[in-house]
């Protein structure tokens, strides 16, 4: 039996980063807004207090902040001919499951994409010719430009109090920042974080090799900060429990530390937790609302005028499929858009091992404490003759010294036993990691659809992920890894071990929670699920937020772009849709 609830004007499904952004913007318009979140209410002082937060077993290894796969997971295979099997435990990516979503336990490395990233197809063809894009690489222009997004990137930077140094202010290149970035309308709201020794070593080596290192843009506070909503954050204390942990110190920008204290006061906002949305209901080309089930198993229908899906990319795509909205992509025929252009991130790196006379103190860390070079990202370098497009940033982040996860040893160390134990002891405080954070370009064979065999706890088919790194990803990543190795060798260690991109893609080791695509944006319903305002082409009162909109995944972390796209969409909704509901772009 389904209970029908009173109708609301705006319904938000999922209350992580984008859910909170949508709620804040829509309540400001005086609309009656409700958010449905499957997980629990969670807040800093009650749930993440500093005397509990720094617990590696509980949070990293018993998944306290992560998705509960017994309710819902996906199946996975590397390529079409294989049998997909369920992701039984989390590994490669770790989405969140409570109020705040994945944003609770992100690192806070807060990047803007390059202007050319949004024109990935036309730009590369213009510069390198038609052959630059292989036939089965399905990258396309995004339908939105950097200049259109810039004001919204700026809004997010200020909401979060991002610490950094601008490299390009209104077209003027600035010393000490990223000279390759798109023009910014203003300086970062906070100065860069104070650096520890490891990133400084990296920066010195990079400079010697002729590169222009700069401090990584960070959502860990470099000083106390009060944002435009009047919410205050505290200086980061470098505790080294950032990624995969909630911050106990109000020092990392999350929805709880930047938006919720202001939003929760507003009388026109309601949050319901323990509400697992199963389907978007539609009639005559409009969403009528959603069906959800509570923790106790009761089913409800929540009607609404507008529906925003903010459930993280994998769940947004799954909800479309479960609701029968749009046609599921078939890589054989190329028909259908839902599930197309799934992409990820190509990670590789090197470890520099030092003698005992240089201590790294890896535990003095923060999620986005680091130095970076951007010479090899996007199209910042000439790709002529290289056999690939795109790139990634190269960085030294000193994030943590948490010893279950972090105990680097040389590659010829025995797997276990006395030799391993001694190597752990000798290298724990004397190793610096350097990484390349590479793009993944979309390919025909990488996609999401529904699994024929496995079902979730609600009886629905599991979503199926088919993904592997393809030729461009591998060639690009190997090129970046060679550059990483050169810098690593210039960092004065006694030994350097290089770890290239691991292929085929393996769903077990953590890589990044930067899944992208599957409900991509574009300029026509024939090549995308949403228009440039992330409005469904099929259902004009349905909006999809998140990295599912990315037609490919550039060489940066996604969240600032996820947020900028959300603000860009909301600005157009406020400007046009609220007065005049309907398609914001004519198909």
């Amino acid at each position, binding site marked *: 039996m389904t209970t029908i609830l009173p109708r609301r004007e705006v319904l938000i499904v999922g209350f992580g980063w984008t859910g909170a952004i949508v709620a804040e913007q829509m309540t400001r318009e005086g609309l009656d807004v409700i958010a449905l979140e499957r997980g629990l*209410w969670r*807040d800093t002082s009650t749930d993440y207090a500093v005397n509990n937060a720094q617990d590696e077993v509980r949070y990293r290894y018993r998944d306290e902040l992560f998705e509960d796969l017994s309710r819902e997971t996906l199946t996975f*295979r590397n390529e079409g001919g294989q049998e997909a099997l369920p992701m039984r435990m989390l590994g490669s990516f770790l989405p969140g499951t409570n109020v705040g979503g994945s944003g609770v336990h992100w690192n806070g490395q807060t990047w803007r994409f390059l202007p050319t990233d949004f024109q990935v197809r036309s730009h590369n063809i213009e510069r390198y010719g038609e052959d630059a894009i292989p036939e089965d690489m399905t990258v396309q222009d995004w339908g939105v430009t950097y200049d259109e997004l810039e004001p919204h990137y700026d809004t997010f930077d200020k909401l979060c109090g991002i610490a950094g140094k601008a490299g390009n202010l209104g077209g003027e290149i600035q010393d000490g920042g990223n000279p390759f970035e798109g023009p910014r309308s203003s300086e970062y709201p906070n100065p860069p974080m104070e650096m*520890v020794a490891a990133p400084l070593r990296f920066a010195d080596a990079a400079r010697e090799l002729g590169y222009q290192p700069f401090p990584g843009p960070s959502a860990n506070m470099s000083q106390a900060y009060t944002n435009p909503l009047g919410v205050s954050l505290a200086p980061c204390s470098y505790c080294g429990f950032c990624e995969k942990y909630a911050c106990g110190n109000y020092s990392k920008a999350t929805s709880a530390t930047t938006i919720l*204290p202001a939003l*929760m006061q507003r009388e026109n906002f309601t949050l319901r937790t323990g509400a697992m949305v199963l389907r978007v209901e539609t009639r005559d080309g409009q969403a009528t609302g959603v069906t959800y089930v509570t923790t106790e198993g009761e089913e409800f229908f929540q009607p609404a005028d507008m529906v925003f899906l903010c459930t993280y990319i994998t769940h947004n795509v799954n909800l479309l499929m479960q609701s029968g909205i749009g046609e599921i992509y078939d890589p054989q025929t190329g028909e259908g858009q839902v599930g197309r252009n799934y992409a990820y991130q190509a990670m590789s790196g090197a470890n520099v091992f030092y003698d005992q006379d240089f201590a790294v*103190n890896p535990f003095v860390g923060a999620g986005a404490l680091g130095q970076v070079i951007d010479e090899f990202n996007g199209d910042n370098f000439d790709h002529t003759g290289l056999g690939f497009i795109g790139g990634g940033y190269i960085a030294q982040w000193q994030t943590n010294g*948490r010893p279950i996860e972090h105990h680097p040893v040389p590659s010829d160390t025995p797997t276990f036993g006395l030799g391993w134990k001694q190597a752990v002891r000798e290298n724990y405080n004397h190793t610096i990691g350097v990484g390349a954070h590479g793009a993944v370009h979309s390919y025909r064979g990488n996609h999401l659809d529904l699994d024929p065999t496995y079902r979730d706890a609600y009886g629905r088919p599991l979503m199926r992920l088919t993904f592997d790194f393809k030729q461009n990803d591998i060639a690009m990543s190997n090129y970046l890894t060679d550059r990483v190795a050169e810098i690593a060798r210039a960092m004065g260690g006694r030994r350097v071990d290089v770890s290239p991109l691991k292929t085929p893609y*393996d769903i077990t080791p953590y890589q990044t929670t930067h899944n992208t695509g599957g409900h991509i944006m574009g300029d026509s319903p024939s090549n995308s699920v949403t228009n440039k305002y992330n409005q469904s082409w099929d259902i004009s009162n349905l909006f999809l937020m998140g990295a599912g909109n990315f037609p490919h995944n550039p060489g940066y972390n996604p969240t600032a772009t996820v947020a900028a796209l959300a603000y860009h969409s909301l600005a157009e909704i406020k400007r046009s849709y609220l007065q005049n509901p309907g398609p914001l772009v004519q198909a």
Partner: protein
Amino acid sequence: MQMSRRAFLAGVSTFALTAAASAREYRGGIPWHPGASLPPPAFDPDDVYFTAEERAFVTAAVDRLIPADDFPSASELGVVDFIDHQLAGAYGRGDIYYMQGPFRDGLATQGYQAQAPALLYRQAIADIRQGLADAGQPDFVELGPEEQDLVLTRLSEGRETLAHTDAKTFFDTLWQNTQEGYFGDPVYGGNRNMEAWRMINFPGARYDYRPWIDHGGEAVILEPVSVGGRMVP
């Protein structure tokens, strides 16, 4: 029936119970209760899973994975107690893992495809011991250190075929759990007296390192702290 930990947490954090429509509805402010905080789950040494023989097997195995030298071995730091307790609870049961069938052997890239961890240990230990018996060899705990290492190495390389479960999955899980017990917070029964942290000079659950940002490559050596404070079981 035992209430799952998550259901229990959901219960305690329930703020405003309104109509049936919305078991948990929040409006008009940040919900906050004095004294509400979520400490780590308590370690209960009596809440255990292993049989005596399984315990002996795991003790021998983890002491080959992390043997004693100038610093304690895995079992000396309580790793067996840690694993035993973990397998008796939500982790062992696989409460938050996807545990629906069919179970099939996957490709290496498809990750964990075994039954829940507690059952994995039970099946694997029985199969390994049976395999040794069938080959006319002594039980695992009776083998010399080199022979034990050989068995573990064969498991780790997936060169052993077990009747009921996957050898490499067992090895990977055992090795992972051993490191969790050795290096994890002592509130879970392992890393006794924070000895593993002292071995590498990890200061534990401290939260403010600002005085040491500018350490200039000098080792920062601080007494470690547990989430349970300095006093540990």
